[in-house]
């Protein structure tokens, strides 16, 4: 990570926007394509006015056709461009599943390294915004099973910029997940200029000694709030922001667990087969005898989606209070 002398406060939308803007400015191989990214400048206005500055050839308003948005980006990448494909909402990514899992993630491998697919697929995900069944989903568990693909899900504006830069520079396909509830609600200092944060490196957002909490996305912020609450009660909780889901930083998790001897994994995606299942299995395999308590997971219930009506969404989502309860219980175990 380059040393930067100055910084400014940005929210997550602004951090994505600034990073994309600098990527477009610095490398004319960079192409943005997706639904409503041009004339409208993305539904969250992330790429607003890009089309005026960079032209419709580099900011492509595609037809509504997700499989080919990713598929065409794969071809562009194979032919030497650096496409950044956008799926308007993560919920719309399913038609592109084959192009991501079957094609992009396997291009390097199947051609024995002769062809590569340096491609970023950005998409807003997550709930808590009254997005109902089709504008709220978490998709990471559907994709993290796939070697050849990298998955990033940052929570803080400075991480958004450093990781998005790293994703754009990366020689392999990266699925870049942006939690839409953090878009405008989360602000933070972001260094000026170009810098990268290595993919696959977690970050300890709050140090502690009695319990390790691993999370990512929106829930990192809530977990920090809950950990601060516990601090006032005399309990010390360490919060690790995974940042990258694949590759996953197992050293960071193991180092912390070996110190605190207790592990709580928190995510918004449902529990069954989720990211927490892999972390639990890995820690059970690698550090079972360091544990003083069973591993716990605080995740969404195993139902198909959060409903539109407020009580249904509320029931699905966790909260700092629910997190604090789970932490308290485990610290006291």
């Amino acid at each position, binding site marked *: 990570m380059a040393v930067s002398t100055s910084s400014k406060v940005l929210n997550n939308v602004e951090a994505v926007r600034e990073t994309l803007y600098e990527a477009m400015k610095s490398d004319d191989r960079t*192409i943005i394509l997706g639904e409503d990214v041009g004339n409208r400048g993305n539904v969250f206005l992330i790429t607003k006015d890009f089309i005026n500055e960079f032209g419709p*050839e*580099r900011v492509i308003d*595609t*037809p509504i*056709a997700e*499989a*080919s948005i*990713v*598929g*065409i*980006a*794969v*071809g*562009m*990448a*194979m*032919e*030497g*461009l650096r*496409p950044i494909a956008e799926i308007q909402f993560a919920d719309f990514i399913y*038609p592109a599943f*084959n*192009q991501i899992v*079957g*094609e992009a993630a*396997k*291009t*390097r*491998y*199947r*051609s*024995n*390294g*002769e*062809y*590569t697919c340096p491609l970023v697929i950005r998409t807003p995900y997550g709930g808590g915004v009254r997005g109902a069944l089709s504008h709220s989903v978490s998709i990471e568990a559907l994709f993290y099973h796939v*070697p*050849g693909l*990298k998955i990033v899900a940052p929570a803080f504006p400075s991480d958004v910029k450093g990781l998005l830069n790293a994703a754009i520079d990366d*020689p*392999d396909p990266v699925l870049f997940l942006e939690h839409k509830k953090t878009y405008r609600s989360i602000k933070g200092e972001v260094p000026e200029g170009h810098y990268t944060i290595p993919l696959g490196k977690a970050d300890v957002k709050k140090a502690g000694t009695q319990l390790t909490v691993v999370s990512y996305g929106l829930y990192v912020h809530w977990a920090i709030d809950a950990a601060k609450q516990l601090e006032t009660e005399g309990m010390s909780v360490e919060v690790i922001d995974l940042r990258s889901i694949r590759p*996953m930083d*197992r050293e960071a998790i193991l180092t912390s667990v070996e110190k605190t001897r207790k592990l709580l994994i928190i995510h918004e995606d449902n529990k069954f087969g989720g990211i927490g299942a892999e972390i639990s299995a*890995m820690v059970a395999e690698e550090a079972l005898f360091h544990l003083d308590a069973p591993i716990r997971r605080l995740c969404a219930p195993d139902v198909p989606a959060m409903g539109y009506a407020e009580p249904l969404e509320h029931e699905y989502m966790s909260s700092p209070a629910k997190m604090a309860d789970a932490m308290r219980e485990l610290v006291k175990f």
Partner: protein
Amino acid sequence: MAKTDTKAKALERHGLTDEQLRKIFRNMLLQRQLDNRGFQLNRQGKVPFALGSEGHEALQAGAAMAFERGKDILAPYYRDLGLALGIGLTPYEILLSLFARAADHNGGRQFPNHYSSKAAGLMSFSSILAAHIPHAVGSAYAMKYRREAGRAVLVTCGDGTTSEGEWHESMNFAAIHKLPLVMLVENNEWAISTPLDRQMAQPEIWKRAKGYGMPGLRFNGYDPLETYGAVKEALDRARSGGGPSLIEGMCYRYLAHSTDDNDMTYRTKEVVAEHRKKDPVPNFERVLVDAGVMSDKDVEAMKKDVLRETNEATDKAESMPYPQTSDLYTHVYEGAWQPWQ
């Protein structure tokens, strides 16, 4: 073949020289030979799988002649042995793919006939139908974006693939952006066991072009020269900024889908035999002999030479080593990769 004492017949040669005509024919012979070799090796238990492209020889050899090596890009599908040969892949490379040897372009990872060669402009593709078509469109977009006039992408598929959604999405996008792309459909009338009339109600695929706003054309894919003319015209249009085309060559799949398929479970010998009468390989041989481009002796010599080359390639490839087990772990990402084990 009986010698005719008529004068050499006039030939619509589309500007092709005698040498190019012979090259097309040699490609067709080689294709037929290698195709059969794959099936033989499979029956001998030496390779677990092979795919047949018999019936596609004329279409592929003709199309390959319109391809500009070092400039154009080919995004093929798995039945494009003749196209791969025609743009520069060697029989030895084909055999390495059949035997899945380490020296194969894919390091023995892919199924046979899933060639790729960056040097030859041959894009890597999977077995998933239509998945490569958006890739071809993306490549064509890159060419247009970089103002590389004089280049185009030739993308091929069978009739079966035109039913996939990605085929539609790709045609639509290519038309909107007037991309330098030629969509060449090799209509062999069969999607494994499903005949054309169960795949589409209106069997003339080229007619869909109008809906996308691009030129469409159907041609006789049993005739390598008509094929060459059609593909050349479409590629030239693409190379000079005239946008994409949808062209459809009619041919037939003489063999089963693959060595794992038995086509007699879904079609009759008689139907296949009827189509065999149009077999492009002996037919084109006759055309060249009748036109005085080759003598019968030339033909026999060429056949011998093709067989010799195939045999040598087979022996050489077979003697090559397999990939190492440790190769399973390479090229997952760039650089070293520690799998989570």
